[in-house]
């Protein structure tokens, strides 16, 4: 059953990498990176999943069959980091739009 999750992870990562590599619009590139990040988060969460497990809160727990807590902490951290990276990338995209008047990655490239 859990195998399907990994298929979803691979599909999401492939879509994200495709978007980041082949799309010309900067916003779409940022969206692509966010999709890869979602794949990574899904992967981490599914690693800690236990069949029929409950939330890892020991207070008042009815059984000890709990999902692992560490991957969830990792996922939360990676979500936070991705939020910061996304905000920064989007503001860069805004400034690039201001300077060039376009979000097309091929409109002008840095070279001399």
């Amino acid at each position, binding site marked *: 059953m859990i195998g399907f999750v990994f298929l979803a992870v691979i599909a999401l990562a492939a879509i994200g990498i495709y978007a980041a590599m082949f*799309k*010309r*619009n900067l*916003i*779409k590139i940022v969206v692509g990176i966010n999709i890869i990040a979602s794949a990574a988060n899904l992967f981490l969460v599914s690693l800690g999943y236990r069949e029929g497990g409950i*939330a890892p*809160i020991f*207070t*008042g*727990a009815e059984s000890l069959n709990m999902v692992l807590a560490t991957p969830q902490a990792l996922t*939360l951290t990676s979500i*936070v980091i991705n939020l910061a990276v996304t*905000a920064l990338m*989007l*503001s860069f995209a*805004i400034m690039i*739009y*201001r300077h060039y*008047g*376009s*979000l*097309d*990655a091929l409109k002008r490239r840095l070279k001399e």
Partner: protein
Amino acid sequence: MSPIVKNVAVVLVIPITMFGLYIILHGHLTPGGGFPGGAIMASLVVLFFVAFGKEWAKKINKGILFFGESFGLALFGLLAFLGLGTSFFHNFLANSDSLFGMSIPFGANSGFLWSGGIIPLMNIAVGLEVFAALSIIAVVMFLENGKVMFSEKENNVGGKK
């Protein structure tokens, strides 16, 4: 926006703030913590942008938000340094029978708010920081770049012209 949206936004201040503070304060007992709670409270700022528009956004004092951000981060760092008697990030308040330091009786219980040592304090610091930082991001993106991004040039945004 219409008066309905404005009034609903004002009414929603109380539940959103309450929920955000609840998530922050109970971070050591239930899922949640500083980041989710701070993000919930920052969503209030975004809601007000939508309801009241640019004129309201201009009234926000960014200096206070910058102060809140730095204060939250500095508090977090300070709490980490205070544990230096044993090691960095050591939870020196836990089981000390003081602020947030009550020891928890063994067995099933519904959770004690005054437990966890420095973890709830760090959650509060992080919550303050996240609230302020996300608000700054929203303010800056909405005010300083909004008019450039969403003006008459809107048709230009697409990849192909």
